[in-house]
């Protein structure tokens, strides 16, 4: 491990962070030592709850009001921990700047981009508003925002997530900082945007020579941009060192587990003799965009002429970036929104069926959502959530029968049936997603649409959920429509893959064909952005 030396610009020594909560004190960070040298990029890696963000928040005096800190944060020979807000404000935003995880909400919705970019320059650099706005325009050009003259007058809601994150980067660079702290800056972005933002950051760092502290849970990013790594787990640094060395010879068990967490394996193919379960022909979904009074209607084709057929036991993976129409397609297949074309399930045409007629089929066609926090009712126990569907679809069951079925379903997703009397908030994200899966499985469906079921989960949890889904498919001969932007997960689960862009299928084929020999440029770009990391990891392995 490299020691602190004269080139060290920011060093965190024995930092502890505690939160006073209603149920007692939570030790979020338990004595962490991290430092960064001029021009260096260090990555702080860990899963959610490891304390990596709170470490940096504490260092910058941004903790929630119930947080307490101990230790030292040394910048230019001075401990900045415990400085008054006024003194701290000479440093943060000027010498040490931050970029946050949530590009959609990190900018104030009520002010223009130009005004927000100018503020730190006026406050720290003593510039006039006019001079600051002029420099803001330069910065927008620096971070490659298209049409900077127009965008400087735009409000955040008029920009995409990627553009907003570029604005945040511009803001971070405005006062020539010594240290840039980036807290998961690309996590909320699509893979291709992610790659662009990382390239931008790396290029700017080379030109401007600042130190970067990069907080992430994504080892691919670490591998790609950092010189040194700190691996954090439950509030402590468990391993640190040169990036290459950590990847080649991880010492700590947890690091090894993180490195091993990429979902792997293939799904065994389904024999050609398997009956066709679901067939979609020329499915179309159109949305009418609100374009104001007496103006021509604007029609958005969210799903444009998509056909496929699925045999029993197969998985069709649907890949695409946000806005490509993949979730809309999933809902159209389940007849959850009005769609053109024809969907045939078990030889019965379901498109155009009314709600009552669909209800009988709903038991066999289920949907699992992305958000494990929002999709479970907080006021029902897990047992009630799981058995609720049985009330509708198998009304003859007694309460006791339903309870037995709920227990079985929980066992199937490897949760202890004793937990059925608890409420959703007592469970972690991974456990909640298992509960959501159990809720589906209790009805013994044949066809399940999985809409980004693993996207909100940490890699290690993701791997477990992927394996669970694969096991369930094998035991119950389930047919999946698997929607995801995560190519590694799609590859591990699917027989065939469709790549969607702007509502259309741009490429389709078997999973191996798509991933090993992509034909379409867009597919290549997607794979390039995502897989680069994987290949590198394989090379080092």
């Amino acid at each position, binding site marked *: 491990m490299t020691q602190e030396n004269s080139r060290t610009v920011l060093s965190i020594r024995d930092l502890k962070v505690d939160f006073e909560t209603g149920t007692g004190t939570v030790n979020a960070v338990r004595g962490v030592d991290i430092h960064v040298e001029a021009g260096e990029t260090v990555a702080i890696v860990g899963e959610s709850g490891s304390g990596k963000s709170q470490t940096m928040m504490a260092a910058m005096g*941004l903790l929630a009001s119930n947080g307490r800190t101990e230790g030292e944060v040394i910048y230019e020979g001075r401990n900045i921990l415990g400085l008054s*807000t006024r003194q*701290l*404000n000479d440093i*943060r*935003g000027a010498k040490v700047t931050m970029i*946050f995880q949530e590009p959609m909400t990190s900018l104030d919705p009520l002010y223009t981009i130009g005004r927000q970019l100018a503020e*730190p320059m006026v406050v720290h650099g003593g510039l006039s508003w006019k001079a600051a706005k002029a420099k803001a325009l330069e910065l927008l050009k620096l971070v490659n925002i298209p049409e900077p003259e127009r965008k400087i007058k735009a409000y955040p809601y008029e920009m995409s997530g990627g553009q907003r994150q570029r604005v945040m980067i511009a803001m971070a660079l405005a006062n020539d900082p010594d240290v840039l702290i980036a807290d998961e800056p690309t996590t909320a972005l699509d893979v291709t945007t992610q790659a662009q933002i990382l390239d931008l950051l790396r290029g700017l760092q080379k030109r401007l020579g600042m130190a970067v502290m990069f907080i992430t849970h994504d080892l691919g990013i670490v591998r790609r941009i950092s010189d040194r790594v700190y691996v954090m787990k439950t509030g402590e640094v468990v391993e640190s060192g040169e990036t290459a060395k950590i990847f080649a010879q991880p010492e700590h068990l947890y690091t090894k587990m993180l490195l091993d967490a990429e979902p792997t394996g293939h799904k065994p193919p389904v024999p050609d003799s398997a009956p066709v379960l679901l067939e979609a022909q020329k499915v179309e979904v159109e949305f009418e965009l609100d374009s104001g009074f007496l103006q021509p209607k604007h029609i958005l084709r969210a799903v444009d002429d998509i056909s496929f057929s699925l045999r029993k036991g197969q998985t069709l993976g649907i890949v695409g970036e946000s806005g490509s129409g993949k979730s809309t397609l999933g809902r159209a297949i389940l007849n959850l929104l009005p769609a053109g074309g024809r969907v045939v399930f078990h030889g019965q045409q379901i498109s155009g069926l009314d709600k009552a007629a669909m209800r009988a089929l709903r038991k066999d066609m289920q949907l699992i959502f992305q958000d494990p926090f929002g999709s479970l009712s907080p006021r029902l126990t897990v047992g009630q959530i799981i058995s609720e569907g049985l009330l509708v679809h198998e009304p003859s069951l007694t309460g006791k029968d339903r309870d037995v079925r709920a227990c079985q379903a929980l066992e199937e997703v490897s949760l202890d049936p004793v937990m059925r009397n608890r409420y959703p908030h007592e469970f972690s994200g991974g456990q909640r997603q298992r509960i959501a899966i159990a809720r589906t499985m209790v009805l013994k469906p044949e066809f399940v649409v999985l809409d980004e079921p693993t996207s909100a989960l940490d890699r290690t949890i993701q791997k477990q959920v992927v394996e669970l889904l694969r096991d369930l498919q094998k035991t119950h001969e389930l047919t999946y429509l698997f929607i995801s932007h995560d190519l590694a997960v799609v590859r591990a689960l699917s027989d065939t893959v469709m790549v969607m862009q702007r509502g259309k299928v741009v490429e389709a084929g078997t999973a191996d064909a798509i991933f090993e020999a992509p034909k379409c440029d867009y597919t290549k770009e997607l794979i390039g952005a995502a897989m680069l990391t994987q290949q590198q990891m394989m090379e080092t392995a």
Partner: protein
Amino acid sequence: MHRYVLGRLLSAIPTLFLIVTISFFLIRIAPGGPFDLERPLEAKVMENLNKIYHLDEPLWNQYLLYLKSIVQLDFGPSFYFRDFSINELFAQSLPISIQLGLSALCLALVVGGTLGVVAALRQNQATDYSVMAAATLGVTIPNFVVAPILTLILGVWLGWLPVGGWNGGAFVNVILPVVTLALPQVAVVARLTRGSMIEALRSNHVRTARAYGLTSYMVIVVHALRGAILPVVSYLGPAAAALLTGSVVIETIFGIPGIGRYFVQGALNRDYTLVMGTVVVVACFVIMFNLVVDLLYALLDPRVSYD
């Protein structure tokens, strides 16, 4: 924008028409008439009176006559205040009620807003608890209790302020009624501001502002308060309409010749035109302030646009 405002104003016409129609017939359904006294008038006198005020004509005819005059902005003669037309009564009393209400509104906004922000910044500390306790008191104690207590202390015992009368809106006469009228509003505004301010202070963009070392004023006022004031604005629209059209209790206790008293007097005396006039004025204020709130929203939040 202009088209939006024009559209909103035009759409107010059918609303007003409905309000006028419904209240016209409702007040006629109520038993008794404007000239029913404890000791009945002579039949001949009654007949004459009814003739003068068109009360002898069929109801639908009276309704048409009223519509016709209201279109010309003439609210007709008062049945009870014999020598005055409704227009004359309102011309005297409405400005007084507006001045009273507007002062109370500004006081509520400034004091309530400040208290709310202070409470939010000291969340779960002594200051916060005292502000919120005071706010709860402000809402729960009715103003017909507050008014006599304030009058007793400041007017009678200390003799600092006059206990009643309007005196042409002289400053010392205004203080007590304005404060009494504003107190419950101060409490509500403080609560609303505190709630939305706490949320705003936790939001990501305020965290960005703090992380970039902006001054406390910029963080709190420029970035947090502008968004946090939106729910207060939407509360204040209807509240303003109610305040500006007079308060029966305050006007009665302090002997202020405002419009609020007319509502009660008109209804009790079956003064048909007075009741109708008050209803129309209140409805106009409500419609107008809802429009003002929507326009303010667009001014405060660029995501709202009426083009």
